[in-house]
């Protein structure tokens, strides 16, 4: 049973560019959450998607947007990249009604130069 799959694993972008990160949830999970983890810090919640809608959002600017597809997979888009966006982006999936059973992927390491 595959866990959470994220792609790509590593990415290098230039300031001002746009980036799209992808996440496939664990089989049976219907909710996807995204977290940003700067080097040496704990993950910070970006947003959560359920039924193809954004349900919760953390303190991130509108440059960060997302999408969830009918197959529950999700994308995280970041526009106008800043050096400070360099981080590990983690995707977590869960299943409605099962009570906080989050499964995390290995993340995408984004470097903005």
């Amino acid at each position, binding site marked *: 049973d595959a866990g959470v799959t994220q792609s790509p694993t590593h990415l290098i972008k230039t300031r001002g560019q746009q980036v799209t990160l992808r996440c496939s949830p664990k089989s049976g999970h*219907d*909710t996807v*959450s995204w*977290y940003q983890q700067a080097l*040496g*810090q*704990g*993950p*910070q*919640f970006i947003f*959560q998607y*359920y*039924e193809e809608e954004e*349900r*919760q959002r*953390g303190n991130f600017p509108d440059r960060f947007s997302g999408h969830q597809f009918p197959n529950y997979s999700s994308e995280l888009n970041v526009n106008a990249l800043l050096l400070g966006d360099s981080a*590990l982006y*983690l995707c*977590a999936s*869960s*299943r*409605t*009604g*099962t*009570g*906080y*059973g*989050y*499964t*995390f*992927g*290995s*993340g995408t*390491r984004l470097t903005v130069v």
Partner: protein
Amino acid sequence: AQKVTQAQTEISVVEKEDVTLDCVYETRDTTYYLFWYKQPPSGELVFLIRRNSFDEQNEISGRYSWNFQKSTSSFNFTITASQVVDSAVYFCALSERFYMIKAAGNKLTFGGGTRVLVKP
């Protein structure tokens, strides 16, 4: 607003020693969940334990044990007889109750993490 503090940034021990990780949290909610996650160098967050705010019973699961005290808002985690494979960053996290219908759980608020180095 919820907050999680892990005062220890790094702990270094010799194999077979016990390791206790401290976690202090802040929340206004009366119903919440506390978690411990392990993050090895691969980057994936591995779930270790979860407790809800109504259950202060402390338990032992294999080499892991935890001490949950609501009176001091602490949720400490102990690894008994540490092994080299326990070397990782450990995160304490808090999730408040989410009131929306059809929710799959509320966001997690993480502490800054404690790096554990177990030397052979």
